[in-house]
């Protein structure tokens, strides 16, 4: 047991802290009024920010050097996240590519796919959205009915995806398609990589709870997807094995998408807010409780990362983290709204953050489904 960072890690942290401070100021001066990344204008602004991260080699610290990363361990990633959110940097609009697709490419992609796709993801050249959910396939993802029919030289796609985050601003979609029409449930899916500018693909953006155009639905009407539509093979993993790819991505999404750094930053903002607004004894207790939970998440992550570094799998325990961070995020924002009192209804970072926090228990597998997973796979209760 050793809870200290190495001298090298401390140096990197300070280097990053300085870089963030300086670059964020530069970026903010460049863009003028900062908009949410879930609007078209804000998305474009944040791509400029992503460009700065990319040029300074901060866009994917944990990737191998061969792919332009820093060869960072999960520890380095944690440090990056702590500093990133502490500095008040924006959400990563490239996160679907960097944090959901790229791990799948590393795990299931062939060499050519790695060589071609990863640098483009990292540079923000290809902007990826996640095409899993459909109108009739949400929690029960095995109900996906979008089809991919094999034809000479490619695939013909039909069906509809929805709730596609930032789909209206992205260039590509990765997702699940039923490639074997006679298959059922988890079998017969293929994980396909699809450019959104194909003929027969229509993307319609629409408002999320906060009104921003962060959602999209994507329609496929006999769209022809050539085998090399993304410059390399459009099939990730094996034909018919799409479910496996999705499952490994889902566990990354649940467990590691939301680093403790975010909530550490939120709770720090909350302490400032409470100082500015004044908190009575009961409110101070509530904030202290939220602080303890955030810190417990940080500590639990240190344990998880230690286990991962020892070569253990993340597995179903990721579901525990997902329930914890998502419910904690709501509590943090509800405290903030209560501190703001009647000002809580003003548009601003807290009201916006509150609305976003409410999505946490829904996306990345609803918390009801996560509780089922904990009960069945962690505790071993009968199905």
């Amino acid at each position, binding site marked *: *047991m*050793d*809870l*200290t*960072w*190495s001298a090298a*890690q401390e140096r990197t942290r300070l280097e990053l802290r300085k870089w963030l401070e300086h670059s964020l100021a530069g970026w903010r001066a460049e863009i003028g009024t900062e908009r949410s990344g879930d609007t078209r204008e804000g998305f474009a602004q944040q791509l400029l920010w992503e460009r700065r991260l990319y040029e300074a080699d901060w866009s994917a610290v944990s990737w191998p050097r061969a792919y332009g990363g820093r060869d960072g361990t999960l*520890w380095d990633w944690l440090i990056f996240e702590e500093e990133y959110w502490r500095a008040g940097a924006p959400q990563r609009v490239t996160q679907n590519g960097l944090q959901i697709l790229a791990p799948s490419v590393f795990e299931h992609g062939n060499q050519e796919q790695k060589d071609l796709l990863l640098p483009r993801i990292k540079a923000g050249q290809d902007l990826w959205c996640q095409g899993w959910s459909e109108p009739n396939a949400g929690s029960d993802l095995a109900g996906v009915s979008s089809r991919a029919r094999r034809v000479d030289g490619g695939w013909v796609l039909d069906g509809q995806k929805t709730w596609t985050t930032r789909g209206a601003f992205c260039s590509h979609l990765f997702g699940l398609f039923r490639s074997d029409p006679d298959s059922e449930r988890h079998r017969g899916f293929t994980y396909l990589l699809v450019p959104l500018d194909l003929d027969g693909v229509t993307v319609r953006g629409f408002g999320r709870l906060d009104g921003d155009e962060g959602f999209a639905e994507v329609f496929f009407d006999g769209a022809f997807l050539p085998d090399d539509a993304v410059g390399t093979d459009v099939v990730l993993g094996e034909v018919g094995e799409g479910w496996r790819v999705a499952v490994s991505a889902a566990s990354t999404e649940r467990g590691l998408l939301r680093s403790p750094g975010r909530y550490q930053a939120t709770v720090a903002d909350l*302490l400032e807010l*409470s100082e500015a607004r004044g*908190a009575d*004894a009961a409110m*101070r*207790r509530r*904030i*202290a*409780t939220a*602080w*303890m*939970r955030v*810190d*417990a*998440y940080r*500590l*639990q992550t*240190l*344990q998880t*990362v*230690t*286990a991962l570094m*020892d070569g253990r799998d993340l597995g179903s*325990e990721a579901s*525990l983290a997902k*329930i*914890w961070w998502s419910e904690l995020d709501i509590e943090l924002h509800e405290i903030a709204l209560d501190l703001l009192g009647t000002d809580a209804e003003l548009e601003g970072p807290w009201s916006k953050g509150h609305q976003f926090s409410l999505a946490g228990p829904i996306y990345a597998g609803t918390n*009801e489904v*996560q*509780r*089922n997973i*904990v*009960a*069945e796979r*962690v*505790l*071993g*209760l*009968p*199905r």
Partner: protein
Amino acid sequence: MRFALDEDREALRSTARELLTELCPASAVRAAWTGVPDDAAWNALADIGALAVLVPEPDGGLGLDETYLVPVVEEAGRAALPHPLTVTALVAAPLGVVGPTVATDLGAAGSVVASAGFAECFLLVSGGGLRLYEAHEVDVEPVETVDASRHCGRVRPRTGGRSVTEDPDAVAAAFDRGVLGTAAELLGLSRTMLELTVDYATQRHQFGKPIGSFQAVKHHLANARLEIEFAVPAVLYAAYAIAHGQPDASRSVSQAKWLAGRAAAVAGRAALQCHGAIGYTTEHDLHLYLKRSWALARAWGSADFHADRVAASIRL
């Protein structure tokens, strides 16, 4: 950076666990409700050095730190051991009180003292310091408590005893260690209550199915597992913080106690609810663990007390 119970700590823990499973089953806890607790498990813990983990080697101890002892204390909690392991090994031993079974009022000043009915020594708050009394130097008035295996009593010294420390920092540190041990015991109790209930929910059938297949039952138990998951690292960190004299040690024990208390509350409610009426009886074992958890949740500072300590330390 590395945050895990490494092999040697895990080894000590599992030795303690094995002997407690054998020598302190539910029947032993139950027997302690009506008589002085059987010493078999306590003596076996002494034999493996568990009572003297924090005592330097030259003085006959293991010369290890809190990160070794706390997992053992958690095991004692898991077994609902009626003996005062927290007080004896974690509070008193580092103050040089080594050997006897110790009771103290440090975590409940002015109120009843746990283990008073059978302790060999009493470590009592006196002014700003702590004094030690032999059992024959105090009057113990037994009191009835919800968990009778705690053998609580009101204690009044008959002699002046001897001073153990007058140093307020040492007293504060002893208090923090008591809080830490109590948090670890609560964590162990939470685990037992959850395990008992997972077993029961797998066996008990209603509507032609195991009740553990009903989603409402699953979610109760998932919630208990969730609170345990996040209390575990907090308790371990608090042990580390104390062992390494970290500046946030006091805050971290308060955090650990708060989270472990919460885990025990959630696990206890879930356990009782999912057992149905069988859990609501003294014939079933669940109540042994449940009642211990109620007592410990308020001992060594309530949840609010510890939340306030955390609030003050983050400058709220």
